[in-house]
């Protein structure tokens, strides 16, 4: 078993992730997992330090958990999921005696506030607006398309509709017509509306310590909501300097001293960067796993280093590889959505399984045969992982997966 460093304090992890626990078991920091009660049995069984906590609503008990963690010797709390971001803010503001951290976490949790803050700080964002009901959406769709000098009858440019406080693609819809608007349920409001930017969308994972970028990864999307791979193609990596500049701006504007951010950007044909949104937690779509495959470092352990106030710069320098140059290859994954209305079994297409880049999948057999209609971008049924040397081959391979049936 890994020996723990008694010179360092405890780290609290907010949320239950076996991959994260596994990473911590193999790391020299002492830790405690703060997660809902249903995980307690497993934790006890495997001797995992555990505090049971209900994250349903941020309430006045946040001080109670902060005090409890402080008593245990915890220096910092790290959020794993969108829902735990403001809990981490609240707890850390107590632990570090820095009330600003709570306010900062609120910014990360509200897509609209986040956009305004970015705009105020001089970061380019698309046109956006809050919507309280369906009429707001229709008006925004019309206004955007008027601006684009479209005539009645021309196909509309789409707009994006995003829930304020959901992670990733959950609650994200693309709206092209008033019919699409009618399909939105009442309980999805309020929401954020954005104009569509034609460009190349990508995500960044940045580990920050002392207001300095320690490691910056660019994740290239093949198709938003379906597939991503790291490191990116040389065509996207050539923007690395510009992207680094953008991240430094984000650090300034959002006043980020430490931690991990996961922003999304568009780069348009002329090389202009548009900020999409930013999250203060590990990305979905398992980009951590991809980074581990491509670079060989454990991204959860990196997370601990970037949050831990007792981590030293030497430790960080020794931990991170050199971006792109040190990558063993390119790792990508594809999110599977069933393409048929009725499915009975999981069946990996032979085109996928026989490809030399294919590694493994984490798809579950279907629980029920009827596929619920996909509203918004929805949630994929699992990921398929690939690894190989040639980023362009990998990109085309990921693209090709969209035409295959994994559930039949």
């Amino acid at each position, binding site marked *: 078993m890994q020996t723990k460093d008694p010179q360092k304090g405890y780290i609290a992890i907010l949320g239950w992730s076996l991959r994260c626990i596994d990473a911590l078991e193999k790391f020299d920091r002492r830790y405690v997992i703060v997660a809902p009660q249903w995980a307690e049995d497993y934790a006890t069984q495997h001797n*995992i330090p555990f505090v049971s906590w209900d994250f349903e609503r941020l309430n006045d008990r946040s001080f109670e958990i902060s005090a409890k963690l402080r008593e245990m010797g915890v220096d910092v709390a790290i959020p794993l999921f969108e829902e735990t971001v403001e809990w981490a803010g609240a707890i850390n503001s107590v632990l570090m005696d820095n009330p600003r951290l709570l306010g900062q976490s609120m910014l990360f949790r509200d897509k609209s506030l986040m956009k305004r803050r970015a705009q105020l700080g001089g970061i380019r964002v698309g046109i956006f607006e809050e919507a309280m009901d369906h009429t707001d959406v229709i008006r925004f769709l019309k206004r955007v398309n008027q601006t684009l000098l479209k005539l009645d009858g021309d196909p509309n440019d789409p707009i994006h509709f995003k829930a304020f406080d959901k992670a990733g693609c959950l609650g994200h819809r693309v709206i092209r017509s008033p019919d699409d608007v009618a399909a939105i349920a009442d309980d999805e409001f309020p929401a954020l509306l954005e104009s569509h930017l034609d460009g190349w969308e990508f995500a960044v994972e940045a580990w920050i310590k002392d207001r300095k970028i320690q490691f910056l990864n660019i994740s290239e999307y093949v198709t938003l909501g379906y597939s991503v791979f790291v490191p990116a193609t040389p065509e996207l990596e050539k923007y690395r300097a510009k992207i680094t500049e953008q991240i430094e701006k984000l650090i300034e504007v959002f006043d980020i001293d430490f931690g991990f951010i996961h922003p999304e950007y568009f780069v348009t044909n002329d090389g202009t960067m548009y900020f999409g949104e930013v999250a203060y937690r590990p990305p979905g779509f398992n980009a951590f796993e991809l980074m581990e*495959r491509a670079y060989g470092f454990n991204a959860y352990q990196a997370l601990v280093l970037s949050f831990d106030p007792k981590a030293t710069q030497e430790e960080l320098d020794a931990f991170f590889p050199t971006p792109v140059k040190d990558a063993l290859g390119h790792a990508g994954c594809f999110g599977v959505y069933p393409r048929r209305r009725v499915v009975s079994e999981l069946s990996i297409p032979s085109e996928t399984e026989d490809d030399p880049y294919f590694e493994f999948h984490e798809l579950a057999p279907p629980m029920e045969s009827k596929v619920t209609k996909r509203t918004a971008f929805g949630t994929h049924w699992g990921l398929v992982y690939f690894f190989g040397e040639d980023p362009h081959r990998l990109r085309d391979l990921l693209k090709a997966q969209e035409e295959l049936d994994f559930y039949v």
Partner: protein
Amino acid sequence: MTTSLQDETLNPILRSFDHVLSQLSTASSAGKATYQGRMLDTIKRLLKHPHGIAAIEPRIRELDQAGIFDGTDWAVPSSLVPGMVGNTLRMADSRTVALECVSLLRFLAVARETQSQPGLPAEHARHFLAQVLALNLDRILGAHHEAARVKAGELDGAVDRLLKHILASVGTEGILGQLVDEVWRILRQRPIQVDHVKSMILQIALAMNEQQQGFSASDTRLGADRLISALFGPTQLSREDPGLQTYRDRLGAADTGTLQAEATGMARAMHDTGLVSDYHGAFLRFVLESGQSYLVSDALGLSSTGLDSFRCYQALVQQLIDVAVRPGTAQAVLGIALMLERGILYSPPIAPSLWRLLGARLTPNCEAGLIAAFGADATPHQRLVAGVMMLLGQPLGIGQGNNPTCQSARALSMWALNDPDYLLWQLAQATSNDRVIMHFEGQPLDSALLPAGLALHTPLDADPVSVVLVPHLDRIYAEMGRMVAGRGEDPHRWINPELHGWWVGREFHIAVDIATGKLHEYDQFIRDFHTSYNPMHNGNEPVIHPQPAGIAVTDSQGTFVGWHAISIIRVALDQSGGMRVYFFNPNNDSGQDWGHGIIVSTHGNGERLGEASLPFAQFTSRLYIFHDDGLKTASEVPVSDDEVVTIRELALQSWARNRL
């Protein structure tokens, strides 16, 4: 080169495998579970690769230590039960199957003493594997059960390969006894196709040769000896498998008494086992060519019936032997002998039909199909004549192979049994015109103009007659299905009489409602079947013609697998006085376990060659379709409520569980 090609496909899998293996082995106890699934997926890919097993073997110890079994039932190998392996290997979840395969490879490593396992001595591991092999002989023998075929999983081929690999590694000792019993059990059903049985006997022979000192003169030894000698040395002159040329030389030098002994020895071995040695074929050809045809009847082992038949049609039979009995088609000898015993040559159209067959010229299509299935050692025409002999001699010996064509196989068997003249007419249509025309409710259906049916390809693992006729019959069957599709009732109501023959009863009984799939007036169905078929209830009337019936096949757990076509041959009392249904299952091996104690018997309960049987009530509990001739029976005896309840319960516990 081939090897580099294999490396090309194997290496990427190994790269992923080794990456995932390192993830698994470095994972903490809490994280193991999250890597096991992906590990099993890569193992699965390796297993499917033709050289995968060889690649996994050196990594077994590492896999074990990395924790592939942690937290599963396989974590303590000494507590595993061989009897459960077979079921696990048939499970739908490929990860569980892969885990079982790794477990077997771990046992193999322990058995070979390349790996040691606390609490598991090498001897125990060997014994475990021997039991697993013996219990899964069907997979090694290549006999496909209905349940297995319907549920064919993506790893089935890999598992079969693994079992054969284990067999080759641990040897056949210990499983030999079970193997021999199993071969006898299959042979007692007198299948037409015996190639897989022959290859098993060859394995047994090799194994016994290698480990001679390990065998005592036990029953097993004797049973195995009988099988081996029947194939490789049935008589005095062929005892030590001298080769066909030497054998012919010896025959040429033999005196009359020796030849007589050879003839009876050959016949005894054949009728004893159902296997025909190539020496037997050589003997028959020798006596015909040397003008000693008086030895033919002894070499065929004919009774007075067969002998009379032979004498009446001697020219025809000699011609049939001349064409059909060749090295590689010797099995036709048994067909000819049994055909003569059936006396069907006395039916006026049969002999001329066989002369027509002997003079037939096959279309290039037929020839190509037969060559694809059997190779070119014998000519397609010789193959076909041999196939006809076997089918006419052993009408219940036909099997569908691994094809979804039970309807066609059943039809061929029924015609061979009941209407051989018609069978030979169908065959003549196919061999001269590449088409079969049948009529459905007055409308002609021409197989040459119809789209493919259930079988997409010519069946290659079936007998010669099936290879020629099944593609046509299958199309016609499918077309009949299309023609009645809109009628809202089970299509077999109309198809069965039209496809099989006039004798199929036009009164149709079905246990389920077609629209809902639920049981429909099931108690009445049970009573009707008794008054139609059970001599105790129908005025002691026997089954007159073989009747098609539909079975809800269940697996050994009693779980519904699918609908299956069989024919009811007889209903009669067995030796112990119980009423049994004797039926034909076009599946390749009728001895199946249908769950809840319903085990289909193939011998020992009054079965004739090729028949399967069940006690009347057990059979009824799996029945869902039968036909009735519509004649009022002389005196119906009512069925007791107890009997109906018993049968009903058996059905409700199994295939009808969700059909109330």
